[in-house]
């Protein structure tokens, strides 16, 4: 692997910036930002064809964050990649800031605003279909949470994409196993999720969503199968990277206190 960026460093920076944003704004949803940080680092450091200086470059790959509540991870990634100044991250959650607490299309590099779950994949299907009909080579990536797979609209889209042979579409599931009020298993069990996608005629790859080599290797082999949409089932840990947050339901909503932030940042400094 020879990524254009040091994705390990990028992931560490994404985590640190997301933590700082959430702590400063006393906001929620750090757990799901940390769980997808490695996926974002590999996507934006090694996979996506994007031009930070030209966010609406027509040939860019389209990335859609359907789990819009985890926006801090994407804002941090975009700022770190130069889509907008890093200093703007400090406005996160401020009155009138364009960095609102669910992902906003008013931010350079963001394709689509979400916040209500189950909207990203149908929208991504439309984009992928547009690329097919116009014979364009750009790809569409949609990042989903596991909890949002409770939404029926996602399953409408999961039926739709293989029907129309959208092999230019990749659904990435940040499968951290914890949703808002409990574990996925307790609330609405998705298991066996890979088999569900396969039964709907998706090409599925299951990986460790924190292993950059695995993420990169999977996403460099697109489409997974000609004629089929791809599902990257990324097994992740909610709160990954901060030991007292990992696997804890509490960090879906809680915001780190100043001492917790310092400890979290200290731990990230120490990661290789």
């Amino acid at each position, binding site marked *: 692997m020879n990524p254009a960026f040091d994705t390990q460093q990028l992931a560490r920076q994404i985590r640190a910036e997301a933590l700082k944003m959430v702590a400063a704004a006393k906001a929620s949803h750090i757990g799901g930002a940390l769980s997808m940080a490695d996926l974002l680092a590999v996507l934006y450091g090694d996979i996506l064809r994007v031009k930070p200086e030209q966010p609406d470059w027509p040939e860019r790959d389209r990335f859609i964050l359907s789990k819009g509540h985890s926006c801090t991870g994407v804002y941090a990634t975009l700022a770190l990649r130069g889509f907008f100044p890093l200093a703007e991250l400090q406005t996160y959650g401020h009155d009138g800031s364009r960095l609102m607490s669910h992902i906003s*299309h008013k931010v350079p590099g963001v*394709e*689509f*605003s*979400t*916040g*209500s779950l*189950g*909207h990203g*994949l*149908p*929208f*991504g*299907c*439309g*984009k*992928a*279909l*547009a*690329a097919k*009909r*116009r014979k364009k080579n750009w790809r569409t990536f949609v990042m989903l949470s596991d909890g949002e797979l409770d939404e*029926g*609209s996602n399953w*409408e*889209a999961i*039926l*739709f994409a293989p*029907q*129309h042979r959208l092999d230019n579409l990749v659904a990435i599931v940040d499968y951290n196993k914890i949703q808002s009020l409990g574990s996925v298993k307790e609330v609405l069990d998705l298991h066996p999720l890979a088999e569900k996608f396969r039964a709907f005629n998706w090409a599925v790859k299951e990986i460790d969503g924190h292993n950059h080599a695995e993420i990169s290797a999977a996403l460099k082999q697109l489409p997974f199968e000609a004629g089929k949409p791809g599902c990257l089932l990324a097994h992740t840990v909610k709160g990954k990277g901060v030991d007292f947050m990992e696997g804890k339901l509490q960090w879906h909503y809680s915001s780190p206190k100043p001492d917790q932030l310092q400890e979290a940042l200290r731990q990230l400094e120490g990661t290789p």
Partner: protein
Amino acid sequence: MRTAFINELIIQARRHPEIFLVVGDLGFSVVEPFAAEFPDRFLNAGVAEQNLTGAAAGLASEGYHVFTYSIANFPTLRCLEQIRNDIAYHRLPVTVVSVGAGFAYGNLGYSHHAVQDLGILRTLPEMTILSPADPGETRESLQWLAQNPRPSYLRLGKAGEPDLHNVRGLTQGPLKIVEGTGDLALVATGSILKEALAAAKILATEGTSVSVFSCPLLQPVPPEFFAPLKKYPRLMALEEHLPAGGLASLLREHLPQPVPSLAVPPKTLGLVGSQEYLRRHAGLDAAGVVATIKALPCRAGNA
């Protein structure tokens, strides 16, 4: 009206390569000519309106002007949040088309009675809302939308409606009289204009002249759109829709004078029958309109 719609859409699609039609597994014997001529710009998304509408937004974000097509409340209420968040908030050029306004599918039951759509969609200020009365107004509405792609809703009747008038230039106003010259203005939206015109005819034989206006545009209302109504001391709104949020509400938001309304009364909700039967039950047929107008208080000083 659906025939006028599809024929005009085909004409517009020849001129506008960005026009794309997505149907929700409905439109048998209507949409086939479009699909045959523009296979690359047609899609049956299946019976899945949330995904259909979200995907339409996705297509629109890549430069298509997408028309979503289904019947009754399916392309509107079933996927209201997709209309609100995906289309309206992002200001994407998607025109939601519903066939079966009001009681057009009266026999099919309450699920198919589209009598809340205008009120609900009018709360989304980004949405342009057009409710034509006949095939001529349908063609004009579509011509305007093709020139002005934007988040929009096109509320159509069903099939076989006659042309009711030849007045053009209604979609951007100002509001125009389609029949009559009286000092009472009867304003209708949608295919129920037919009942307004029939009522005016009955009243004329009895010596009462009524000015009948057709109002196909409900949002946004350009300045002076309702100016022609200001001189009328007596007004009546007629709509195949519940009172909340529809035409009468709109007129009251824009006009100083009282606007009595002929709208679907709650007592008719849930009844099933032909459009004629349900309009009669609701007091919205020509006879009902005549009776209500006769019961209106006379002009001050003329009592």
